[in-house]
């Protein structure tokens, strides 16, 4: 019986199990070593590096502003981008964000009413929406969606991307514009919904969709400008995208100074360059 042989001749079998144990320990060693270094807050180089939750349309503009902020003040922030509605829900469930930049001020005022924020924050920009199509697409890109209507009538649109109207403000505005153009019921079955407007932009321009309605600020980003064409949809076609930011209850000094920095001329210039309209400026 090999088993009993093995139980008796302990030397050989324990050498083998030691080898196996060693292999397993090796597998664990790398992450294990990492564990010892990562967890203590004291080991972090910069303790006051607040997490800033920002609407996805700000992806490129805010990256630039954060770089300038670091250059000018030496302080840095952690930026995360997503849908405004998702962030609002996460804040209600205790997400440790210190500053929240929403694409729709309603989320901010609701959070304030329920006691999650310091105040009602500040209006920082007005967003615009665009019809966008990949350069390779033959979809005519015009401000009033006539090309989309014509193409749709001929059955030439299989996929059209917008952000999810349920929790992404840009999705809701896209829906309004499509309703205004009288296309909503016909285009509904062709829609692909992005979790946020950046994902919608990615769907709209990756080539598997004919086009989509996304944020102007994304269409103006260098990465998209190369591969897509767009037309700005008139402001009257959708409810205004009043984008409001607010400091949350746990905001520290760096979050406060980033909040102020966002209202400086330097930051406003970047926002303007990405196609945002700015509060207090006559258009």
């Amino acid at each position, binding site marked *: 019986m090999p088993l009993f042989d093995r139980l008796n001749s302990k030397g050989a079998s324990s050498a083998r199990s030691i080898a196996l144990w060693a292999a397993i320990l090796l597998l664990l060693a790398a*992450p*294990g070593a990492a564990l010892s270094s990562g967890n203590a807050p004291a080991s972090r180089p910069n303790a006051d590096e607040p997490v800033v939750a920002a609407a996805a349309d700000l*992806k490129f503009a805010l990256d630039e502003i954060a770089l300038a902020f670091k250059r000018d003040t030496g302080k840095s922030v*952690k930026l995360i981008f997503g849908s405004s509605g998702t962030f609002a829900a*996460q804040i209600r469930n205790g997400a*440790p964000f210190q500053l929240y930049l929403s694409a729709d001020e309603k989320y901010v005022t609701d959070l304030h009413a329920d006691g999650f924020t310091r105040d009602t924050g500040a209006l920082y920009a007005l967003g615009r929406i665009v019809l966008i199509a990949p350069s390779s697409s033959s979809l005519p890109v015009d401000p009033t969606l006539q090309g989309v209507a014509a193409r749709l009538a001929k059955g030439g649109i299989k996929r059209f991307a917008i952000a999810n109207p349920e929790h992404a403000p840009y999705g809701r505005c896209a829906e309004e514009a499509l309703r205004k153009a009288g296309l909503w019921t016909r285009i509904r079955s062709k829609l692909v919904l992005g979790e946020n407007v950046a994902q919608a932009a990615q769907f709209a321009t990756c080539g598997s969709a004919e086009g989509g309605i996304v944020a102007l600020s994304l269409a103006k980003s260098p990465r998209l400008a190369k591969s897509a064409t767009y037309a700005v949809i008139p402001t009257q076609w959708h409810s205004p995208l009043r984008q409001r930011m607010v400091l949350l209850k746990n905001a520290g000094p760096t979050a406060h100074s980033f909040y102020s920095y966002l209202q400086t001329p330097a930051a406003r210039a970047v926002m303007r360059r990405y196609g945002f309209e700015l509060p207090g400026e006559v258009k």
Partner: protein
Amino acid sequence: MDWSALLLSMKLGGMTVLLLIPAALFAARSLAYRRFWGKPLLEALLTVPLVLPPTVVGYYLLVGLGGRSWIGSTMERLFGQQLVFNFTGLVLASIVVNIPFAVQPMQRAFEAIPQDVRDAAACCGIGYWRALLTVELPLAWPGVLTALVLSFAHTIGEFGVVLMVGGNIPGETKTMAIAIYDSVQAFDFTSAGQMSLFLLLLSVLVLGLAGGLGRGFGRRHDLRRF
């Protein structure tokens, strides 16, 4: 390539394995050898994370452990931090979703040990711990190894749950899978491609290593004779 995300994924995988495998080992052994009332139900409960969408598990964890739940608020009172949107919460979530990946292979391995062998060990007067260490574990080793590797690899690739309870915070809850998702949304396909390729190679390497080790072990110990 987002190195801090990679490090975080490795840390999460290591932590999950470290905490889950020992507990799952004893659970798997009990399930393999004992009969008790409600066992099918317990087995079903321990397997359910395998078939549930990660978003469902994530939803329950978010609501069950979040700031507004009694667990979440108690934790916050006691330790000053919650269980969602931080690394501790991720570890907890990852343990929950990995239970079936850890328990199943080990349970099968324990079940495959012939009753004669365990009886023989008992006849020799070998106690619980010695029997476990010198008889059962050496025989169930390939199962343990599979459990370990599957849990680790699965944690590295986990996406839905991390997205739901993590909150995508760099250095804290932004794992490799989330970093890839992010870079695709930022149209940064170079970075997404690099990280994806890296994860693919890592997974193949780890699974291949485990498969090879398991088979080598089976040959050396001539397990086919049982």
